[in-house]
């Protein structure tokens, strides 16, 4: 099979010093990607369907407590543990550097979700419905997943595709900042920055070279496409 190349290598930088934990990104992601509505019972079973979660850590004891927020989404690892284990090649790596999930191939073994060290893959254990007319809000650009299928953050690939279509029509490449996943578009404090890591002058590339950078679970060697920037100095009372 011929090798597919691409001028893009999508990545994201999450600046934890800017993140206020407000949760706008979480709701934006749900709205954009037809993520299911989950009731209390489902979430109590650990079967919530959020693609993006904000982990909150407490450090210290009253009155010297500090809080850290950590938005966790699919890291789109370059050496993704979820890819080699799918028996039907539903989880694969696309030429743009994204980890792709093809819903119509997935047969629901859940091996990929098991292997993901970041626990970002969510499985449709239940058949989800949207009471009318909430289903009028569903986006036609993205599949509405049925029961038995694994799903996860796609970096809003439908937006990337749309931007590529427009760029192709104008015979150019996608400009920096032209395509934004729902989460980074809505983040009030601009904590989430998305762009092309293959372009050294893009905002995300410049931020990814910051001395504050780190990656989640680096020692596992997954080589994520998401860089985090450490929150700044915090003092005690």
């Amino acid at each position, binding site marked *: 099979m011929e090798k597919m190349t691409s001028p893009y290598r999508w990545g994201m930088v999450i600046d934890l*010093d800017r993140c206020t934990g407000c949760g706008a990104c979480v709701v934006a992601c749900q709205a954009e990607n037809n993520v299911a509505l989950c009731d209390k019972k489902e979430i109590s079973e650990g079967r919530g369907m959020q693609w993006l979660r904000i982990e*909150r850590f407490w450090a210290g004891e009253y*009155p010297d407590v500090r*809080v850290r927020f950590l938005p966790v989404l699919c890291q789109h690892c370059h050496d993704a543990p979820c890819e080699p284990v799918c028996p039907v090649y539903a989880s694969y790596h696309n030429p743009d550097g994204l980890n792709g999930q093809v819903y119509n191939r997935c047969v629901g073994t859940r091996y990929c979700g098991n292997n993901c060290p970041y626990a970002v893959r969510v499985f449709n254990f239940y058949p989800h419905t949207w*009471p009318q007319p909430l289903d*009028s809000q569903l986006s036609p650009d993205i599949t509405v997943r049925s029961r038995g299928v694994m799903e996860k953050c796609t970096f809003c690939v439908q937006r990337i595709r749309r931007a590529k279509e427009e760029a192709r029509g104008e015979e150019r490449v996608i400009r920096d900042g032209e395509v934004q996943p729902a989460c980074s578009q809505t*983040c*009030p404090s601009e904590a989430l920055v998305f762009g092309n890591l293959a372009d050294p002058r893009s905002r995300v590339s410049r931020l990814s070279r910051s001395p504050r950078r*780190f990656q989640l679970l680096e020692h596992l060697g997954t080589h994520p496409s998401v860089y985090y920037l450490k929150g700044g*100095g915090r003092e005690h009372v």
Partner: protein
Amino acid sequence: MKRRTFLQLGGMTAAGAALAGCRSGNEKLIPYLIPADEGVTPGKAEYYASSCRFCPAGCGILVRVSDGRAKKVEGNPAHPVNRGKLCARGQAILQELYHPDRIAQPLKRSGSRGSGEFRKISWDEGIALLTEKLKALQQEKTTDRLALLTPPLSGTLADLTDRFMAAFGSPNHLSFELLAPDWLRRATRQAFGRASLPWYDLAETRYLLGFGADFVEHHLSPVQYGHAFGRMRQARDTVRGHFTYVGGRMSLTGASADRWLPARPGSEGTLALGLARLILADSLHDEQALAASGLQREKLLRRLAGYQLTRVAEQTGLPQQAIVEVAREFATTRPALAMAGEAVAFQSNGPEAVRAVLLLNLLAGNLNRPGGVYPAGGGGAGPENSFSGLLSLVAKMRADRIGVAMIQGNPVHAIPPATGFQEALARVPFIVSFATLLDDTALQADLILPDHAALESWGDVIPQGSAREAVVGLIQPVVTPLGDTRQIPDSLLATAHRLGGGMAASLPFQSYREMVKGAMRRRIAPARGTDFETAWTELLRQGGLFGKIGSTGEGFRRATAAAWPEPGEPRFAGDEKEYPLHLQVFPSTAFYDGRGAPLPWLQQLPDPMSTVVWDSWVEINPRTAAELGISHGDLVEVTSPAGSLRAPAVIYPGIRPDMVAIPLGQGQQGGGRYARGRGANPLSLLAMIDEGTEPRPAWHATRVRLTRVSEKGNLVTAGHPQGSYRSDLVGI
């Protein structure tokens, strides 16, 4: 025939029938009857600009519409308030539009109030019924028996309601909302001589000292300040703004602070004056600013003699060292900025404490300067004490002096019962609600004239306290209305026209859209000579009229007539022995004052600090919980002098041991399937403070006690129940 033949024939027929059924039919391909509008390409989406109405901040939005359905809401990049960003609640307004329990046409009560039994009626009938009631008042010459209750309004809707009430002859228009910043408007006028909300230049400041100002969740303009916060931290080379948060509870905003000062509730004003004294004592203040405001250091120090460090430390419960450090940091880092928020304002000494905090800005010399505080654009004029307006309306209703009440919003749920509001409202013979869902207020109404959803409406909104520029945001419908609903102003216009006479004459508009357009024409008439229709289309496309900075007139200066703020001792409802804990009710990111509770996306959004979903909860300090034998997730009963409720407990390290906190918004009896019967409403716990001089909304001045009921709190959290206590695992 033989059996074998029969079986063979039978089998073949069955197989043939089955195979014939296997053929799947072709789909249908249905064309349009008439082609789509010009500029609309089927299969591609369009974006329409409008404004969000979910909180008073008035952010600009772009709505992605595909095949006539709204799919996604984004911030409008051209809008000065939010610059393309949007908060969680703004993202969720799609679910207000497409809520499965929306009221689809006017309703008339058929059962008893609160039973939820209504009969569907036509608009003609509904408007006729309202007109009949109002006509009766006119005939009896008791037009002051009409009351109109709305949230604080701006722009054309404010104008319409003013005209309606004036023409009808009733003074009873109450513009009230639990979280309205009137207290800030008043404090700013008293401190800085201008009736205006302040606009804080957070992005350019280097030291933010926030006194309970929760700008991430709700204070003034969450998206605007969230954006500014990001810039304060990391947008400037080598400069990282510092943030110190003062408040007994570490709110979501406080969680982003570099230093948390858990001051005793009600002591924030004392702390502010103590800091002021330290700053003046070491002459670290801005001398020019002080001189310009006509104040003298020695005189001020004498005034502040009662606020020495030991006393302040004792009153606030904070270490002296910390107070001294913060004073020095605030005074020597320029520009510095002090903000006062709801957590301070809703104490019994709130108004004075807020002014004390504003004073710190004076000492830091940041008035009308980058990184400091400016008057916000948007006119400024607005209610300064709507709470006393509320109490006087309650008194009137109680005295049976109100015959007809028209209500926008959900005050039955969002006003503490201790004010007597719900009880007094029950005495009003005829209640009209404009709700879109059968919320608690609609359940008490006799007539429901359902409003359009925000995304189906026309209008304009003047953001208050959101920007320095003068901004008029436009609201336009992005989809055709789903049900047989009408905008509130159109219902009022129809009523006015039916009443005829002076009413009809004062509101000679065919529709609210016409009125909004006319108002805009007057606004831009002096500037433009071009065709208005083109200008109007352009304004709609842009999302509003965005002015320039500097059109707000004079800046802030110290009001010489201002009385000196003397916060005094805070007072609380409830005896300290019987009710040992302070209660703080807070608006969460998801629910605000309760308006977010009907929307499933917001119910399933884990609260950022507690990660609780689909519920209410009580935040308790770990030590206090241990003393009371309460574990995470236990069901606890919270009792105050005014009432009691039950909710699950969350162990919360970021709160004082003598405080507990409960989020607002849940505990609705109506509000659709997602909000109904869920959680508890902490407003029922709030008691009124008997404040001799003047009534004040002291929502944080109630004391409570806590008892464990059982382990069956049925609490569900999205994250690990207590969160991870070792962040070094993740290295952040």
